[in-house]
C-alpha cells in the first residue's frame, strides 16, 4: 500500500512541474518559401563563382550596408542552402518584429564574405523587375514566399557593402 501511495505522490509532484507552455517555442517570426531557378538547374554558374547560397531578409532595397544591418539585427539570413538544383527550400528566422518593410533576396557568395551577388528576389508578379516588400508581424510563419532566379537575366545591383 505504501509503495502505491508513494508512487502516486511522486507522480503528482513530478507532474505539477514542467509541461509544455506557450513560451516554449520561437517567439520570432519565420519567412519561408522556395528559390525557384526558372532558367533550370543546368544554368548554375561554376562552383568557384558560386561558393555559397543564402536568402537574406533586408529592411530596404537596394540594401546599402547589409553586413552592418545583419550585425545590428536589422537584416536576417538563412542557413547555407543547396545549390545546382532548380528548387531550393529556405527558411529565415526574423528576430525583431514587427518588420514594417522587408525584402527577400537570394544571394550567392563568389569570394570573401562581402563578395556577394544578388541573383533574385521575392516579387508577386514574376514579370516584375523590382522586388515586392512584405510586412512581417510578430510571431508569424509566412510561407510560399518564392524567390525566382533566372541566371540568364540576373537583376542589376549595386555592389553589396
Amino acid at each position, binding site marked *: 500500500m505504501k509503495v502505491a501511495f508513494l508512487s502516486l505522490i511522486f*507522480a503528482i509532484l513530478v507532474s505539477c512541474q514542467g509541461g509544455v507552455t*506557450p513560451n516554449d517555442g520561437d517567439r520570432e517570426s519565420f519567412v519561408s518559401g522556395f528559390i525557384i531557378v526558372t532558367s533550370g538547374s543546368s544554368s548554375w554558374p561554376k562552383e568557384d563563382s558560386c561558393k555559397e547560397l543564402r536568402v537574406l531578409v533586408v529592411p530596404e532595397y537596394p540594401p546599402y550596408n547589409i553586413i552592418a544591418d545583419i550585425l545590428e539585427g536589422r537584416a536576417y539570413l538563412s542557413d547555407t542552402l543547396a545549390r545546382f538544383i532548380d528548387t531550393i*527550400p529556405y527558411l529565415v528566422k526574423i528576430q525583431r518584429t514587427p518588420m514594417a518593410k522587408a525584402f527577400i533576396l537570394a544571394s550567392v557568395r563568389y569570394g570573401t564574405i562581402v563578395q556577394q551577388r544578388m541573383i533574385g528576389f521575392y516579387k508577386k508578379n514574376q514579370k516584375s523587375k523590382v522586388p515586392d516588400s512584405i510586412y512581417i508581424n510578430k510571431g508569424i510563419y509566412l510561407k510560399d514566399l518564392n524567390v525566382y532566379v533566372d541566371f540568364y537575366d540576373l537583376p542589376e545591383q549595386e555592389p553589396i557593402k
Partner: protein
Amino acid sequence: MIMLRNILITAYFIILLPNLLLPQIQISGYIYDQVDNKPLIGARVILDGTILGAITDQNGRYQISKITPGWYSIIVLLPGYRTLKETILLSKDTIINFYLQYQDIIKSEVVVTASRRMQVLSDVPVSMSVLETEYFQNKNYYELKEYMNFIPSVDVNSDNISIRGSSGYQFGSGSRVTLLLDGFPFLSGDIGEANINIFPPEIVSRVEVLKGAGSAIYGNSAMGGVVNIITKIPEEQTLLLAKASTGFYTMPKYDEWKYTNKIRTKNSLALTYLLPRNSMKLLLATQFLNDESYRNFNRSNGINFFGKFINQIGSASTFSFFTLLNYKFSDDASYWKSVQYATLPPDDYDLSRRITKRRLAFGADFLSTIGKNSFFSAKSSLFATDFESNLPKSDINYRQSTSYSNFNEFQITHHLFENSFLTTGINLINNWVHSQQYGTRKQNVLSTFTQAEFKMFNKLNATGGIRLDLDVSDSSDKYFEISPRFGITYKELEKLVLRSSVGKGFRVATISERFSSVRFSGFTIEPNPDLSPERSWNFEIGSSLEIDIFGKKSLFDFSIFYSRYNNLIEPQFDTNASTPTIRFFNISEAEIKGLDFSTNFRLSKNIDYNLSFVYLDPLDLNTKDILKFRSKFYFTSGLNLSFEKLKMSVLYKYVSKIVKVEEQLRFILRDYYVRVPVHLMDLNLSYNFQNFDIPFEVTFSIQNLLDYYYVDLVGNLAPTRFISLGVNFRIK
C-alpha cells in the same frame, strides 16, 4: 451458381462426415469454489485444442457433448479464480466436478493471439499484455485509444500503434503493428493504417497485445507486434446496455490557448444488445460520438456500428458473421499554428476544411472439427475504407482515397498427442486502391504457415513455426519472405515461468509508401515503387514469478529483448531531388534493445496495484545516433479499489521525452522541436445502483487529472484535462 452451391454442400458433408461416424461421448459436472463449496456461475470449461466448450449455468453445472473419445486437456476459467488445467482420458460419458481456487493476484490466464488458438498464458514464449474485461468496466472513456493509453511501452496515436518503439512518426503511412479484431486483420489497403478508434469500446471483451515480431503467425506488418481485440460473446441472458456520457474540457491554464469562452464538450451515446438464444448469439452495438475538442482544429462527429452473429451448428461447428461500419466527419488539420497558439491551426488553414472518413467491413468465420482431435477454421473478410476532403479536386490540399482489403484464410489445428498441436494454414490478402494521390493500384500477398507446439516432461513447452509470404504488387518487384519463429517456456510449480523466443518479422511497403504523389506544405511526396520490405529479427528472454512479499501474493514479470531492423522504410527529405521532395526510402539499419519489468500486488481483497517499467535503447546504426521519434523510458502504474458497489482506479503513465525529431520538419511545422516528457494521470470512479428496477451504474472520470500539457509526437498538443460523467443502464 447451382454448381457452386453443390460443391459447398458436398464439401460440408465430407468435412463433417467423420464426426457423424465416430462414437461420441459427453462430459458434465459442477464447478465449485474450493473454500466454501459454492457453485460458480459463468465459469468456462474448454477442451484444449478443440472448439468444444461450455459455460456453467445458475447451478454451476456444465455439459459438453459430442466429444470424440481420447486424451484431453480440460481448462476451467473464471475471472478472479486461478485457471485449472487437467489432462484426462475420456473414453465414455464422464461426470467430473472441479474446485477453483480464489486468486490472490490479478493476472491474465489465457490468450488466443500468440498461437491462433486458446492457450494458457504461461505457455506463451513471448511477452504479452492483456486488458481484461474488468478493466473496461468502471471507466467513462469514449474511444478505445483511451483504454490503451496505460499499456506499458505501447504508444497509440490516431492512426498508428507502436510497441516497444517499433514505429516513429510515419506521416500516417505503414503500421508496424498488426491490428486484429477476433483474428481478422484491420489494416487499411492504401496507407496500412491501424486505427483502433473505429471499434466501439462497448463491443470489447478483452485486448491482447503481443510484444515482438509476430510475422511467423500473422505475416506482413506484425514485425513490431500484434494487437488483437476480442469482442464480447453473449453468454447468459438477453441484455440491453445503454451508456450515455457527457463531459467537458477544462479551460487551459494559459490565455494564449483559450481560443473560445465556450465550454468545449464531448458526448457519446452507445447502445449494445446481447442476445443468446439456444445455439445462436447476436451482438449489436452502435455509438454516436460528438467531440467539440480542446483545439479549434480537431472537432469531429462519428458513428460506429458493429454486429456479430454466431450460430453453433451441432456441437462441432460454429459459424459467425460480423459487420462493422464507421463514419467520421472531422477537421482536417495536421499541426498547430505554433506552440504559442497550440489550440489553433496554421494561419493558412481554412477552418471550413473537413474530411469524411468511412469504413465498412464484413466477414465470416466457419469453425468445425475434422475427425478426431482436429479442427479447421475458414475466414473471409472485406475491409473497405474511404476518405475524402471537402475541397475542390483542383485544390492542392484535396485528399481522396478508396481502398478494399480482402482477407481469406484457411487453417487447420491438429491435436497431435497430449498437449501437442500442429497448426497450418494458407491465406491470401488482396488490396485494391483507387486514389487521387496513389492512383489505381493492386497488391496481393499469398502466405502459408505452419507451427507446432510440444509439451515435454510436463514442464517444458516448445513452439516452432515458419511462414512463407509472397508479395505481388503493381509496378514493383515480387518479394518472397521466409519468417521462422522458435520459442520455449519452462514452468516450475506454476510459480516460476521462464521463457525465450526468437523470430523474424517483416513488412512490405504499403501502396501509399510506394505510390504517393501529393503536395504537402510546399513539398512533393513522390512515389518510390522500388521499396523493399522491412525486416526484423527479435530475441527475448523473460521470466514471471509468483512470490509472497510481506504475506501478500505478488507477481513479477521481467524480460530483456533485442530487435534488429533492416531496410526500415522512413520518409526522408530528398536533398538530391531537383524539387523539394519527401520520399519513402529503405534507409535505416536499426536496433532496439531494452528491458521490461512489471509487477502486480493484491494488497487486500479490495485493493490491487500494478506497476511497470520499460527501458528502450533505440539506435540508428547508420548514424550511431538514437532513432528519431523514440522515447527511452516508460513507467505505468495503476491502483484499483473495489468496495462492493463503489469502484475506483487511478492510472498513471510516464514516457520520457522524445530524444530526437526530424530537423527538416522546420520547413513544414513551427516549433517542431517542442517536446516534454509525458505525465498522464486518470481518475475513474463508478457506483453501481443495483437495487433499482432497472439497474444502472454511474461513472465519473477525470482524464489528465493534473492538466499536464505535453505534445503528441510533433506539432500537436495532447488532450488537456477532461471531466466526464456517464450513466450505464443494464436492461435484462
